[in-house]
């Protein structure tokens, strides 16, 4: 059994998401190889991951922007030599891997949270309201990995060989136009230790910033949001935590003015400690919160910030 992990593109370095996917891949019980699409420098960085025996680097420009039309034929072409192909369940992995699966005539096992056996996995369904144990009967496995439930492999200590691979290059049907990146000095949501998250109650972008940011600054926390806060334009789309946004599992998740809809809980209920601040004592968020404070966030949060 040899598994190929499609690495999350991350400039010249290794993404935490890739390290989690490597852990899942090694639990399949065989060799782990990593495919890096992008720079040679990134190839070197990935060679250091503990437990990885080979790094394949495809440095053609066609593979630089995560275009599935170009990447899927590359990966499907390499898949011949592998029993399993994995990727972290990031927006890149979710975009590319099902395309690979279909090219291989395989049903993808999406978003696994546990490896139960060589072909058996656990995955959440219905927004995490049920956990299914599933077994694949396909000759090859194609898997995306929920990164918050697997430990990160050590980024250093390994000494994989690095090989260059070539693929068919550009399919010519799609073009990367640009990325409107959200720039922030804060910790990344999916790997943050503490997250302060705001909901619809924050009123508007300015109020969100005035209330949530100082608390997050004090705690060195990442900032998240409910769908309602994102839809209303308080914060950018990639702040959304939930079933259809980011899945997070920090040490501490502080939900402020968030009711706790099942779609939101799906994204954060694996947090170690959940703190909720809401003026409605019956808000469903309190059913999952370890620590709750009932009160008006506009008085409570500034007071909290000043007392920390």
């Amino acid at each position, binding site marked *: 059994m040899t598994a190929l992990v499609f690495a999350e593109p991350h400039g010249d370095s290794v993404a935490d998401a890739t390290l989690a996917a490597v852990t899942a891949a090694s639990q399949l019980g065989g060799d782990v190889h990593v495919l890096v699409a992008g720079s040679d420098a990134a190839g070197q960085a990935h060679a250091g991951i503990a437990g990885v025996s080979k790094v394949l680097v495809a440095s053609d420009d066609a593979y630089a922007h995560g275009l*599935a*039309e170009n990447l899927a034929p590359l990966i499907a072409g390499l898949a011949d030599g592998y029993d399993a192909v994995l990727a972290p369940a*990031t*927006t*890149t992995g*979710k*975009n590319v891997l*099902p*395309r*690979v*699966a*279909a*090219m291989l005539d395989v*049903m*993808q096992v*999406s978003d696994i949270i546990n490896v139960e056996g060589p072909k*058996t996995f656990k995955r959440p*369904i*219905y*927004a995490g*309201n*049920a*956990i*299914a*144990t599933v*077994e694949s009967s*396909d000759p090859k496995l194609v898997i995306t990995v929920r990164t918050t439930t697997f430990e990160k492999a050590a980024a250093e200590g390994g000494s994989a060989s690095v090989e260059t691979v070539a693929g068919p290059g550009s399919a*010519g*049907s*799609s*073009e*990367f136009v*640009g*990325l*409107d*990146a*959200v720039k922030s000095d804060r910790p990344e949501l999916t790997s943050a230790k503490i997250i302060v998250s705001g909901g619809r109650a924050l009123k508007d972008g300015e109020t969100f910033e005035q209330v949530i940011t100082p608390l997050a600054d004090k*705690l060195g926390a990442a900032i998240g949001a409910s769908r309602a806060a994102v*839809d209303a334009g308080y914060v950018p*789309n*990639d702040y959304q935590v939930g*079933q*259809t946004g*980011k899945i997070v599992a920090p040490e*501490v998740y502080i939900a402020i003015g968030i009711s706790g809809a*099942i779609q939101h809980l799906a994204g954060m*209920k694996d947090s170690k400690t*959940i*703190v909720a601040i809401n003026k409605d*004592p019956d808000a469903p968020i*309190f*059913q999952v*919160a*370890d*620590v*709750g*404070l009932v*009160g008006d966030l506009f008085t409570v949060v500034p007071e*909290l910030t000043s007392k*920390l």
Partner: protein
Amino acid sequence: MKILVPVKRVIDYNVKPRVKADGSGVDLANVKMSMNPFDEIAVEEALRLRESGAATEVIAVSVGPAKAQETLRTALAMGADRAILVETEDAVEPLAVAKILKAIAAEEEPGIVMLGKQAIDDDSNQTGQMLAALMDRPQGTFASKVAIEGDHVSVTREVDGGLETVKLALPAVVTTDLRLNEPRYASLPNIMKAKSKPLAMKTPADYGVDTAPRITTTHVAEPPVRQAGEIVADVDALVAKLKALGVA
């Protein structure tokens, strides 16, 4: 240009799913079912493209039980022109759905197939990407903006790092994210009108697709339940708790 919109009948998003006591699955008996929310967004976007003159016809298609006719009638009531039900009482996996959609696309030759990014029951997030692979056409997944530009479509995508824009040659596959639009409600007159719109009945066999599952679900369990914790009296008590957690 035609637009093909696959819509799935799923548990209503407001209903909290219950796992069956014997661990065989989620209990769907007497549970409210609706159109997958992302598919409503897809129908809405297709209708807007038709209304703007960029598209000429919107065809809704569902793979599922006879009851999925209701879901298709909802799409017709929103404004879709006609519908196709590929009827089967078996659960059909995304790969097989994609194969059926590919066969329908080969007949209908749509300029865009507009799917939801994710069905809220299986949370697979793969059918659109698979269809694009099988059709060997480009894909614009997780779309928050779609604009037709001649023989291309420009798609703005919600990605982990922000918003990405790609330009795809038509025909193309697009999957919708939450912020693409706000779906309209069907008006009563349109619900009435929808009853007489064409709805073709087909089966997977009509398209030569084998729907035998590749993945077996051996067990379905409730997730670990979180116990509600403590409600603290005031900010000072909360500060103490956070300090105890080593947070502050």
